[in-house]
């Protein structure tokens, strides 16, 4: 909770859009929730939440670490720091079968390369599957995180490459083809609660399930968000403005990120 020593206290500290995205995501996690965390941006946000307003947040990584409390940001989902600080380390079969699949996780926290208007995600290929332009890493734990967690929060930078319709490949399901899709597929979790980008926050419309811009980060215009979206972006009638990062949030985020850099030289 200590501010970074390098940062001068001001009423509105400067921050990057990536930092705003991490901080907006961290704010969405409540103390005591159980959170299945993908690596990268989701892990940064979850650890920021744990280091600030949600010290009792339970972090679960697909490597088998339950209740990990890393002092620095892990570089991979299997870092030794996660295992050393976990309440329990279980096998990979167990983490998927006993912990994720039954729907006992509150929040699944995912990133992706592409997202569509129903918050379906692509982490598989850009271009045709058989002869891809870019081969992405693939599914990993994402399809079952997306299906089985009670709710899902997605972090993704918003631009014409990432916000596309249709996806080149549907790796993980959000709301499928729209209302009723998840129910027809027998999925237990409620699906994406929100998508947090570097420009703002989108939430599914309660009726149409279509992602709707509901919040803009400081300094971002609706037009900029529309311009960064590969379909006609729905915008909520009353747009909220995200509060700028506090000094405490920014300081803690920067501390975590700098510790990762140090950790990587070990």
């Amino acid at each position, binding site marked *: 909770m200590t501010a970074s020593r390098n940062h001068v206290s001001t009423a509105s500290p400067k921050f990057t859009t990536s930092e705003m995205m991490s901080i907006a995501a961290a704010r969405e996690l409540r103390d005591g929730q159980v959170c299945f965390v993908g690596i990268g941006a989701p892990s940064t946000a979850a650890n920021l939440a744990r280091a600030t307003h949600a010290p009792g947040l339970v972090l679960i990584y697909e*490597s088998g670490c339950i209740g990990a409390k890393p002092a620095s940001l892990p*570089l991979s989902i299997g*870092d030794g720091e996660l295992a050393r600080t976990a309440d329990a380390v279980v*096998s990979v079969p167990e983490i*998927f079968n006993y912990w994720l699949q039954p729907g006992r996780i509150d929040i699944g926290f995912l990133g992706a390369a592409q997202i569509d208007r129903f918050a379906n995600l692509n982490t*598989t290929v850009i271009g045709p599957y058989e002869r891809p332009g870019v*081969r992405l890493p693939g599914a*990993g734990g994402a399809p079952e995180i997306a299906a089985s967690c009670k709710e899902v929060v997605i972090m993704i930078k918003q631009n014409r490459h990432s916000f596309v319709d249709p996806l080149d490949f549907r790796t993980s399901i959000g709301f499928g083809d729209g209302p009723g899709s998840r129910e027809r597929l027998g999925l237990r979790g409620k699906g994406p609660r929100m998508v947090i980008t570097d420009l703002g926050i989108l939430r599914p419309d309660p009726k149409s399930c279509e992602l709707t811009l509901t919040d803009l980060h400081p300094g971002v215009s609706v037009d900029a968000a529309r311009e960064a979206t590969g379909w006609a972006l729905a915008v909520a009638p009353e747009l909220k403005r995200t509060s700028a990062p506090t000094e405490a949030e920014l300081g803690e985020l920067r501390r975590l990120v700098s510790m990762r850099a140090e950790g*990587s030289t070990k």
Partner: protein
Amino acid sequence: MAEIVSLRDAVAELVADGDTVAMEGFSHLIPHAAGHELIRQGRRHLTLVRLTPDLVFDQLIGMGVADKLVFSWGGNPGVGSLHRFRDAIENGWPTPLKIEEHSHAGLTNRFVAGASGLPFAILRAYAGTGLAGRVASIKSVQCPFTGETLAAVPAINPDVAIIHAQQADAHGNVQMWGITGVQKEAVLASSRSIVTVEEIVERIELRPGGVVLPSWVITAVAQVPGGARPSYASGYYERDNTFYSEWEGISRSRDTFIAWMQRNVLGVGA
């Protein structure tokens, strides 16, 4: 009972061209040294299996060892792409690579079924995704009690499993600890197995989180200190994150990749 042999002999005797070889290690205890030995011995036409192919699979694929990859997530964790893996899929270099792609939940349950002597496993997975319908090894089955439809995946039973562990004793009993992924299942699902270990100890003392594989389910144990580097071995050494970052540059071009392999793998004894 496991024989204690050199890694060179283990690979020579137990891995044949065309075999299906699972090399497991979930961001920890990744059997790099064994992978390098496969490359040095010039194995070809392998079907490689692993949930999380990363650097050592990039090297195996880039050196043309594999015809096919069964996997669920292929990347350089925390860094980015695997360029040799991508080059093989996107451009067929050095040889075309067939892929059979699952989610972690699906592939891990294929190992579980294999270890359990069952022909398949059931799970809640794949519904509504592009993998269902595209991947032949994803089917469905109905619950005979509720009528519910679930995903079904076939057991995977590799010819050989290769893993790295912290310790073995002189009888070939093995212990690993920390993140142990799906290694137990990989060994139990496979016809043969090679375990490289950091050290051979007088007597295995059970550790918190320790997973033991008794000698009689292992074919060969080879002592290879540092055999997981640049991955890590909890209790022995840390992950070399710098090398993971450097691999991005090394692997990006075919030339720098080949030069690195010549210098660091082909020109080095087991």
